[in-house]
């Protein structure tokens, strides 16, 4: 029995192609239906997939951040302020969002990452609240509780992405870039270093791996991805407020990650594809949304500890055991 972490979650090459074909079909659905609503959902899936991908990088070193929404928020505000106050183009705001979110992560990561497990989760929970409260305290920057409306649309080299399908293509490309980055990290020396720190920090440290620096690096990369996501989100939705990036958003990223598969490469994407459309289709039953999320989370933790991305492998193992 071999369960290598570096092996793809798919049971076979055929399964892998099936998975890719399925994703491509799903991604093409809005064009078949032509519905603006479906394009909107597609964009939200891409954004959620990117943010959750960032969260996955942090999870690969064994930390679970409940402040991920705050970093999405930092990115969003960075980009919005640069574009609206300084009249800089979106293509400056986007990388700046990633850099600022990553820099904040670097600064606060040093003391925070000394904590492990539930203590890190708790401190990041507090951090997300802190972000929200601080932003509410400075309405001159954040627009206070009424936020900043009328954020200009995404503009690339003078072309404004006015139509939904244009934004959708742009977010698909961004998602592909994030997934490619995750793939590169995962299959390189850095990914093995992350896995070693995640699995056995004491042994990693005694092998000479700088565990503190490794965790900090993962935290910076993950939060920078969150920041970039925030920038795109703000310019697509056209509105930001401190409440947009409240604790609930962090929780949904965590639920997507765990449902998709915490340690699998495709986990964040699968989680986003599966869970983002749910609340959109359940608008009529908003009051049950969190109950449904909770039930899904419990079911996944009970029956699919590797998440949905681990499902093919689990089925393959069941078949082998029966034989």
């Amino acid at each position: 029995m071999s369960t290598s972490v570096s092996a793809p979650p798919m049971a076979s090459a055929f399964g892998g192609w099936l998975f890719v074909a399925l994703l491509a079909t799903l991604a093409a659905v809005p064009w078949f239906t032509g519905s603006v609503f479906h394009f909107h959902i597609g964009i939200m899936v891409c954004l959620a997939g990117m943010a959750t991908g960032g969260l996955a990088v942090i999870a690969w070193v064994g930390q679970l951040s409940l402040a991920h929404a705050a970093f999405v928020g930092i990115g969003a505000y960075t980009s919005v302020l640069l574009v609206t106050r300084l009249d800089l183009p979106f293509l400056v705001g986007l990388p700046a969002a990633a850099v600022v979110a990553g820099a904040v992560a670097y600064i606060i990561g040093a003391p925070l990452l000394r904590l492990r497990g539930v203590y890190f989760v708790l401190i990041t929970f507090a951090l997300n609240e802190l972000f929200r409260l601080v932003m509410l305290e400075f309405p001159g920057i954040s627009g206070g509780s009424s936020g900043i409306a009328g954020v200009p649309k995404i503009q690339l080299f003078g072309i404004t992405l006015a139509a939904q399908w244009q934004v959708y293509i742009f977010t698909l490309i961004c998602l592909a870039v994030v997934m490619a980055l995750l793939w590169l990290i995962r299959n390189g020396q850095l990914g093995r270093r992350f896995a070693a720190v995640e699995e056995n920090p004491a042994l990693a440290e005694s092998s000479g791996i700088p565990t503190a620096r490794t965790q900090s690096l993962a935290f910076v990369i993950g939060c920078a991805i969150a920041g970039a996501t925030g920038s795109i989100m703000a310019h697509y939705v056209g509105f930001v407020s401190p409440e947009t990036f409240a604790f609930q958003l962090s929780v949904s990223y965590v639920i997507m990650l765990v449902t998709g598969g915490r340690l699998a490469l495709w986990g964040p994407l699968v989680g986003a594809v599966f869970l983002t459309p749910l609340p959109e289709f359940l608008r009529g039953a908003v009051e049950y949304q969190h109950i449904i999320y909770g039930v899904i989370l419990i079911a996944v933790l009970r029956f699919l500890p590797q998440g949905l991305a681990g499902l093919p492998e689990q089925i393959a193992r069941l078949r082998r055991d029966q034989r």
Partner: protein
Amino acid sequence: MPSDLSIRELTVNYGPVRALHGVSFDVPEGQIAALVGSNGAGKSTVLKAICGLVEPVEGTITVGGEAVAPKPGAALRLGVALSPEGRRLFGRLTVEENLMMGAYTVSDRRARREMLERVYGYFPRLQERKRQAAGSLSGGEQQMCAIGRALMAQPRVLLLDEPSLGIAPIIVAELGRIIEQISRGLGMTVLLVEQNAQMALSLAATGIVLETGSVKLTGTGHELLASPEIRAAYLGH
């Protein structure tokens, strides 16, 4: 004979409890030394002190004449590698990835490959299973992988913590032979920390017996194995 690892008057407290009282011993270069003693004698504390995981109240530890600072990683920089007791591997990484992690501090790519070949030479079973997740190996194979991982750092001193723990007797004998080959073949200094006094003392040029935090006896492995005191206390004869 010059000594590679030298412990002088090492005293360690855990809160109000004194775990080691002035422990001194030397491990001669290129030889195997066995540190034996029953549960709670202080064997693991000696290792922790060498690796900088506990701070001694008194005493010095020197490797190749240089003092080891009481900080994690300090001993590693002076060429001491530890194969720890208990959770010894990265279970989800493959055997080869585990081994390569051991060579993290070795920057020369070719040296790493060469060492990997050597480790596979000592442990052919690891080569057969190199793409397998380390967590799926048997206990004995995991121990081999842990020793191999420590070797990959190309240490001058190899510390082995309870390599025989939880392993079938026939594999223990095989491991013993391989440890001897490694020490002889690479001229490596080995400190073997064991509850299995029989196995450890039969391999060792030098034996140190710890009892309740103090050195009770030292001698060559064969002397200690023959000593009636040791036979009565540790070998059950």
